[in-house]
């Protein structure tokens, strides 16, 4: 299954590692409270756009504009919760 919570979590960490150049250790160390947009300097508007498109490709979901608000990118926990909601929709 690619949409178990553990699989979604792993996919999301790998995707952030690829896009933000975090390296495996930093990506593995992300917690629910880890700040993303506004916290990580690499996380600019282009990176947000890339993350959304890669989430669609790798999780097999479609994300509409109006589903996205700033809160989703505030923390890793928020982004994971959004992804889990989308894959089980």
């Amino acid at each position: 299954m690619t949409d178990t919570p553990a699989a979604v979590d792993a996919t999301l960490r790998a995707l952030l590692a690829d896009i933000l150049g975090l390296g495996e250790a930093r990506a593995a160390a992300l917690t629910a409270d880890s700040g993303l947009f506004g916290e990580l300097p690499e996380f600019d508007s282009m990176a947000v756009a890339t993350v959304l498109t890669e989430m669609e490709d790798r999780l097999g979901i479609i994300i509409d504009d109006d589903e996205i608000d700033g809160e989703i990118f505030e923390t890793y926990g928020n982004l994971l919760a959004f992804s889990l909601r989308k894959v089980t929709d």
Partner: protein
Amino acid sequence: MGEHILRIEPAGAPRATVLIVPPLFEEANRTRRTLVLAMRALAAKGFAAVMPDLPGQNESLVPLEDVDLAGWQAALAEVAAGVDGPLLVASVRGGCLIDHRVRAAGWWRLAAVGGSSLLRTLLRARVSADREAGVTSSLESLSETAKTEPLLLAGNRLSPAMIAQLGAAEVQPVEPLRSVSLGAEGIAGTPLWLRAEPGEDAGMAEAIAADIADCSAACGVS
């Protein structure tokens, strides 16, 4: 067409020439360093490697707003026509959308991507930047605007023709072709074209050069 062409020659007469077609827009900047390292590695294997500036990109004097994918396809075909001896095309990501009009002995494509996915990311970057600036836009509103006027997307001023062509662009069949992706079965490395801060990967460059050389032999080029 008078665009710069980066050319790296082997020590002796080249076995063949490899035309490198980089990814499009920002993805080209993120991968350029590694692709040039791959060109050097190809030269060490006896190939000449060329990477032309596409009109409107890098050192080109042509305004980006004046070009579209059809123009880039024609420009690459023109560069290829000027190459003596056997030619192999090596394209990465969005570069695979513009390499099929070239006359070549073989094609190698890495992580080919459809144009709609690239366009979606560019439009989203604009929506995200607009939101930070307190402006409300959406993929739909931007797509509507793009039908009649140029749009500034992630620093690229793209014409209605370019946006329409990009949104519809699919990788076209070519023969003979080796299509590779990242991972255990393909090229060992990370998707540098996605990376927010440009990086480089010498090991990946070596793997790219080795696979292109292998593809060249398999295609009977040299």
